């Protein structure tokens, strides 16, 4: 039987490890691994930036905490880029499609706590938003 855990948050600075600890209206969801599971079987991530600054960047998901048995796992999940528009023009929006990592197979310890962090790496594109779903099995 699968169990899910979702966290999200803003990445407001480049090259800064930012904990994702909220879930919209649930401001402090439990980050404890459900009992009875052995692994993170699948990971879903969507990320995009507001594009208020020029540059290019990549995005990283860090899964750690004492629940991850083999130490922190660092997984690339996306990228973005932006250059200024001509005067009088508007920029197109960024749409962060869902990155799906099947068979993630990351060993976890039930009833221990995860840390879920995101990073924007490279250049600062303005605030980015990341949402992460972990599916346990």
């Amino acid at each position: 039987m699968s169990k899910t855990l979702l966290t999200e948050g803003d990445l407001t600075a480049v090259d800064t490890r930012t904990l994702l600890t909220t879930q919209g209206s649930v401001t402090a969801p439990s980050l404890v691994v459900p009992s009875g599971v052995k692994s993170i079987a699948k990971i879903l991530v969507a990320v995009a930036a507001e594009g208020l600054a020029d540059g290019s960047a990549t995005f990283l998901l860090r899964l750690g905490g004492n629940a991850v048995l083999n130490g922190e796992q660092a997984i690339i999940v996306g990228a973005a880029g932006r250059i200024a528009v001509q005067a009088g023009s508007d920029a197109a929006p960024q749409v962060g499609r869902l990155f799906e990592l099947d068979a993630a197979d990351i060993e976890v310890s039930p009833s221990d706590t995860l840390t879920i962090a995101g990073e924007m790496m490279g250049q600062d594109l303005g605030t980015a938003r990341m949402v992460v779903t972990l599916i346990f099995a």
Partner: protein
Amino acid sequence: MKLYRSREGEATGADTKTQLTTLGSETAPGPLLVPNSAKKISAVIVAACENFAAATSFSAFIRLEGPGLPGGPEVFGVLAGGAAVATGGNAAVLAQTIEVDIPVTVGNEILIFGEMAGTDIGQTSMAVTLVFDK
């Protein structure tokens, strides 16, 4: 079970081999060594995006090299793009997973390089995760 090791960086010139050595807030993570219990690389996860700073087209690829790869270097195309004008480009790109079966030598280093080919569009941010099976 699987282990995930990543590096990232910027390719800033066309036809220039650039080693990816950092990981965001970790500015000096050190050599990427094959984990002690790893049997092979089962997948490579890649995300890349250009900054649209020049009106041109390009492609981009990554190279895996080093003593951690007993079968020798491997190369993967990861991105191509172009811009008609050097203004207004804006994009978000999701990562791609490339399933592979690459032998490794435990405890040895794997070097990851990014490279743009064609003409210089400005720069391309590139990030790579090596997925090791244990």
